[in-house]
């Protein structure tokens, strides 16, 4: 009987597919939160497998900070066309124009926190009762406590001290009108698992993940790309470096690392030797020891 067992990647995949099908079965109107980053791309790939030969039954929802890498938007649009799914875009710029949120000021200003309002507004406007995310428990200490099915109250808030216990594979998505859930099918994956899976499945990812030459400045311990949204200081020195990004988010806060890795194989090798966490290059997480927990409580991804 020894051949009847799954290796770790197959088991993680099977678990994620099970979770995606549970979401579909337990909710009326679920969407995939799509950022254009590798984790949401992997989620989309898993959804394709979970419902084959039918097409993905979820819309993709993108919260657009307005500060995008142009490559991400093109990648998103190509993927949506290829899959034949619906795309919902929530615009942070629109939330600012409507006076729902106010832009941060100063050199480290970002639109990171502002996304929360836009996300919750989009969830409400489109009657979404479950938003599927690519969050992983290995990413950050507050995320280590996340459930596969994570309840949000009618203000979209997460209460980490009062979560529903989650036993075996019995997920409780029961909820009242106005509340919603976040579902995290790849909770148990690590960054390394994601890269090994991208490599094995030959999943297409944005070119930004591969080493390329780019104009950057050194800020908050990482290489921040030059863009029209970045406020340069007099002391900032613009240089050209061969870099790649470990995570993709708002262009103003996503830092790159120096790298020569220009294939998925080389990236996977680089990641396995990496000595810093991937979110170590995200200035949004460096604001305080509990920056992620504070944002998550309010309704962040």
């Amino acid at each position, binding site marked *: 009987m020894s051949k009847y067992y799954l290796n770790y990647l*197959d088991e993680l995949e099977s678990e994620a597919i099970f979770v995606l099908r549970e979401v579909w079965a337990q909710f009326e109107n679920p969407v995939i939160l799509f950022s254009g980053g590798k984790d949401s791309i992997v989620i989309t790939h898993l959804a394709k497998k979970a419902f084959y030969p039918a097409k993905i039954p979820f819309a993709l929802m993108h919260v657009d900070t307005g500060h995008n890498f142009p490559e991400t938007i093109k990648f998103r649009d190509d993927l949506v066309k290829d899959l034949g799914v619906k795309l919902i875009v929530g615009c942070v710029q629109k939330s600012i124009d409507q006076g729902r949120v106010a832009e941060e000021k100063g050199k480290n200003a970002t639109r990171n926190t502002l996304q929360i309002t836009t996300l919750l507004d989009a969830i409400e406007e489109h009657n979404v009762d479950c938003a599927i995310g690519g969050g992983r428990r290995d990413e950050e200490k507050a995320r*280590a406590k996340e459930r596969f099915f994570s309840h949000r109250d009618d203000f979209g808030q997460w209460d980490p001290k009062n979560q529903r216990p989650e036993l075996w594979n019995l997920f409780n998505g029961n909820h009242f009108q106005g509340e919603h859930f976040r579902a995290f099918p790849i909770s148990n994956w690590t960054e390394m698992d994601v890269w090994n899976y991208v490599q094995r499945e030959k999943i297409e990812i944005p070119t930004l993940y591969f080493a390329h030459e780019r104009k950057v400045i050194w800020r908050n311990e990482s290489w921040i790309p030059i863009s029209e949204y970045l406020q340069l200081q007099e002391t900032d020195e613009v240089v050209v470096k061969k870099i790649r990004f470990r995570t993709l988010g708002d262009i103003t806060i996503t830092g790159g690392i120096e790298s020569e890795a220009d294939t998925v194989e080389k990236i996977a090798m680089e990641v396995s030797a990496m000595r810093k966490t991937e979110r170590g290059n995200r200035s949004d997480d460096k604001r305080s020891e*509990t920056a992620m927990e504070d944002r998550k409580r309010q309704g962040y991804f």
Partner: protein
Amino acid sequence: MLETNQLLRFTTAGSVDDGKSTLIGRLLYDSKSIFEDQLEAVETTSRRKGFDGVDLALFTDGLKDEREQGITIDVAYRYFTTPKRKFIIADTPGHIQYTRNMVTGASTANAAIILVDARNGVIEQTRRHSFIASLLHIPHLIVCINKMDLVDYDEKAYSRVIDQFEEFSSKMMVKDIRFIPISALNGDNVVNRSENMPWFQDAPLLHTLETMHISSDINKVDTRMPVQTVIRPQSEEFRDFRGFAGRIASGILRVGEEVLVLPSGFSSRIKEITTFEGSLDEAYAPMSVVVSLEDDIDISRGDMIVRSNNVPEMSQDVTLMLCWLHNNPAKPRAKYIIRHTTNEQRAVIKEIIHKININTLERNTEDKTLNMNDISKVKIRTTRPLMIDSYRDNRATGSVILIDESTNETVAAGMII
């Protein structure tokens, strides 16, 4: 990592000062799963707290309240990988709501590590943790006798725990128990073999975790596939396709084999096992697949596909060990939603047979309440029959949760007897 590497899930239990966080910190640190920025953050905090060196326990700190109060509130999941296996740790708190949290962490675990302080030997909490591990049918139990450095690495402290353990573990149902003397603080027998305990000949903890046989932890005999959803592509290419999606809970499915669909009882043969990569001749637990049948049978979510000559029991009356998980006690005669595999029914608690004192393992037949952290034997009745196996034979088809209809919260977890 190799293609053949497996995934092992384990849970850790110990009382407050048994050094559980230090052990997890040690495993992560010595297996090089701690990143520089995490180490820097912990070093800074260790210095601020006046700690000499690195306080390994800080690696498992999570939420704001936990950092402030220095305690763990909820189950946290940790990950590490070695060249042999990927590991998921369900790190459960030692005190607050220990039963609820340990039951949660134990429900998916292949192995449990139970920590015993070498100075104190087996204490009440050790019995409690071992009982829960046995109740949740964790296949492998590893008892780590910790703080051996504080008893001069004396073999007697280790032998004493084994003797004490065997005295009470005879009543429990654990297939595989091992004992390892360690010092989490100094790293003896955690990742590296201890030079301080030459009398201990067996493998250190990590090597044990890397090599223990787990392929048989899932039942491969009784074929059960609970249906999650029906796949109907409605495209030109797959016009007549009707497949049943689910994760095989146990056993093996083969194309051409005769199957029974429950609860309807109609039989058919497996026509195709479909995956994105192509069709399969056979599929086994815990694979997620889509199955189509030769005959056009009405099947929906909550139904179960089984092999014709090996069927689960169909019953509306179910006896189970129930662990109450919620602050609000059970309401007499109240109806709850019961979730069993992908099936959802309503249920009422008919009778509380006895409550187990988890410290003494004695039965209390007088107390008829169900409060948070209580473990009781109860009888329930459901609105429609469930397709059940005993939890001992089949974790996936022997487990249920109860949901309170008025709050939607998960209030209890049950293991079918």
